[in-house]
């Protein structure tokens, strides 16, 4: 089901204080894929995301999205080109309301400025309407959890699982092509992660997003991934379907410790 090549990463490297965080990493995503990135702690997974989203500049290599190199772009420019992300440690705008969190994420898709705001022009009002409508649509993706009376609550009152959901909603609101999910089910209980796994599938089937995901939970990885990439010490040690990867001796040695019990 993979389509056009969206993102190509070409021998990407980065060093922090003499230490290689990533070494000659090659990677690609095609349209409509769900790719999981797994690997031990400190393997450079989050650095990898930071690099794609423009938060860290690579030392060498290239990141090409739809034929355009992303090097040197600020994170907001990357997002504007269609790559959104969530954060491993959930970083919401805690004192803004849930609605505002999602509204503000549409910043790069809208354009009204000071003039419109000051004179309340028709264009300004129309755009505000659209922003709000889209925000509610995105929040509605999670059932009733984030809408209703919750819309005007500050994000800080949400439960842990709901914060994770709001993070995803916020990334969706930027109208991206690719969503980078950084450990979307971390800290959720088995039931919640099962539910979210289903939603990740829907993100592709209903909303048409392409997804790259970092995850430790092998159940989730197994259930949704088209392809799995294993990182260790900043290098790719294996790549392929979940079955291929989970039986790869090198992966077992470096990451899994023992084969994942069955495919049940």
């Amino acid at each position, binding site marked *: 089901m993979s389509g056009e090549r969206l993102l190509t990463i070409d021998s990407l490297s980065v060093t922090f204080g003499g230490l290689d965080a990533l070494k000659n990493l090659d990677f690609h995503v095609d349209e409509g894929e769900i790719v999981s990135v797994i690997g031990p702690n400190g393997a450079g997974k989050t650095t990898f995301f930071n690099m794609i*989203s423009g*938060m860290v500049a690579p030392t060498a290599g290239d990141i090409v999205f739809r034929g355009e190199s992303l090097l040197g772009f*600020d*994170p*907001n*420019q990357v*997002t*504007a080109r269609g790559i*959104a*992300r969530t*954060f491993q440690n959930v*970083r*919401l*705008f*805690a*004192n*803004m*309301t849930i609605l*505002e969190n999602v*509204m*503000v*994420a*549409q*910043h*790069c*898709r*809208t354009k*009204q*400025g*000071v003039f*419109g*705001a*000051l004179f*309340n022009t028709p264009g*300004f009002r129309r*755009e*505000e309407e659209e*922003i709000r409508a889209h925000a509610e649509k995105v929040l509605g993706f999670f059932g*009733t*959890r984030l809408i209703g*009376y*919750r819309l*005007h*609550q*500050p994000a*800080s*009152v*949400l*439960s*842990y*699982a*709901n914060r994770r959901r709001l993070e995803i909603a*916020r*990334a969706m609101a*930027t109208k991206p092509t690719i969503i980078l999910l950084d450990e979307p089910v971390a800290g959720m*209980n088995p039931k*919640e992660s099962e539910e979210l796994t289903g939603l990740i599938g829907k993100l592709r089937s209903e909303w048409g997003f392409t997804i790259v995901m970092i995850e430790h939970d092998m159940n989730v990885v197994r259930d949704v991934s088209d392809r799995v990439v294993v990182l260790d010490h900043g290098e790719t040690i294996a790549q392929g379907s979940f079955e291929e990867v989970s039986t790869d001796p090198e992966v077992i040695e470096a990451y899994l410790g023992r084969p994942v019990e069955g495919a049940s």
Partner: protein
Amino acid sequence: MTAHLESGTHEVIPARGGLDQNWRKLLRYGGLLALVLVFVSLIGMPVKLDSRIVVEPYISMGYLSLLWLPALLGYTVSAEKVLEGMASHARGAHELVAGAIVGLVGGAGLALLIWGLDTRDLSDPLVNWGDNLLGLLTFNETVGYGMLVWLGISTGLGLLGGLLHLLPRTATRAVLTALLAVFLVSALESALDDISEGFRLEWLFEWLFEARGGLTPKGAIAVAVVAAGYVVFGRSRAKAVRQRYDAMPTVERTRANAALLVLAGVAVVVLPMFLGKLTNELLANVGLFLLLALGLNIVVGLAGILDLGYVAFFAVGGYTTAILTSPQSPGLSPELPWLVALVVVIGMATLAGLFIGAPVIRMRGDYLAIVTLGFGEIIRLTVRSDWASGLTGGAQGITGIPGAGIFGVAEVRGIDPQAVFYLVAFFCAVAIYVSWRLERSRLGRAWMAVREDESVAEAMGINTVNVKLMAFVVGAILASFSGAIFAAKVGSVFESSFKILVSIVILVVVIVGGMGRIAGVIAGAVVLIGVLGGPNQPGLLAEFSEFKLLIYGALLVWMMLKRPEGLIPNVRRSRELHQEEFLQDAWLRGQVDADEEGNTTGGATA
């Protein structure tokens, strides 16, 4: 599973005995009181404020500067911090004894000071050490008398402080309001004098006030009774009105708000006509600082950028106006009309905002604070230097600014404070409108996001550099308006009007009022600039001018420690500052939520 939400139960334990005290705490508070009393005496407050009478002939602000302290500490020492869901003690002799002991220790400190004043001469480093202070503290009687009286007074006041815990809530509130009212009315004497003339109420003024200053005893009693009466009888009604307002549906509330706004507008237009020169002058000053504070509020309160060099934009407005309009401008002197100059001022402020903003915008918040402060100084030092004196007049400044002509309809100059006030009020109204509209726009949301977490805002597609520059520029333009009016009002500009001090005072106004909240900023400006005075401008309490910067410093610290959200807080902001509590709250809700939704409670709604 909501069983663990056992909050709100408040158990009352029987009162403790009078001697069942935490003696170390009492001594600590007593020692603190003694220190503060001695400190206040030695910085010269009692002596210098003695000439300002509160109630003739009984009490002056000098004595008052000492008297309120024992009562305050007597009250706080036995104030029990009650966490919700926990128990508290019933009140009784315990509180009285605690207050009295704290007062006694404090009084002993003062007595010791009297004894020291009498026997030693420390006037070499301590300038206020001397006979004036001794005379004041001993009421011009013997040393022993003074010591005893202060022991007595301080103990008594401490006891009164403790007593406040025993009175019913309404009574406490009535007493405090009455005392505060007497103080405020007396503090506002000169303004009331001015106002009473306008409203033909001289008779009331003369009845209330002594000719040489201060309330008459009967006046004081009248004021106290009115204030207490309001608390006892009027408060519940005011509360009811407020509740009705809160309960209104949105549409109706908008209408009520609009009505209130119109009312305030009419008051702003009509009131100055009844006011004298002095009050108008004062209001004009308040307005100038309010305009600055509204601008800084956008930068600090909304976008979360701590700009300590904000005065630079004030200077840009002032100097641009001076150069363009004054015939005595040393270099360039096109002698433009004020309104034309104002257009250039906007341009210059925008440029300055971009020029200062661009290099600092990517820096971390605290570095940015210091670097902007540096920029402010660079601009001031450059303006003052011989190098730039060809344009700016150097240390001599630029004089002879003709004033602001408004389409030939009016000519606004410093000698006509009422006209200045109207001009300032107009610009403040513009600033308020701008702040209000922007806060509710796409840009305002982006500012808030940047304030909350800059790198996430960036990752969510917000061009943080542009957005922050925008805040800088909007703030700069508002400040430059203030500068332009300032130049026209005073008729001259000197670099000394643009010191760092101004930036800090504006920051205090914004913070004391409540960051990010327009009503708060207005209240902050009126209270601080109006009553205490601006950096170079006297306020209503002119005698305080020597102490005002000390008070500003102390206020800033106290605000940050006790009420970081300001007098009239912004709901969001206060949430951020009490985040820990909220996180715990959220933590709790987390479990409720895991339980499936439906039975969760909606907490604070924005």
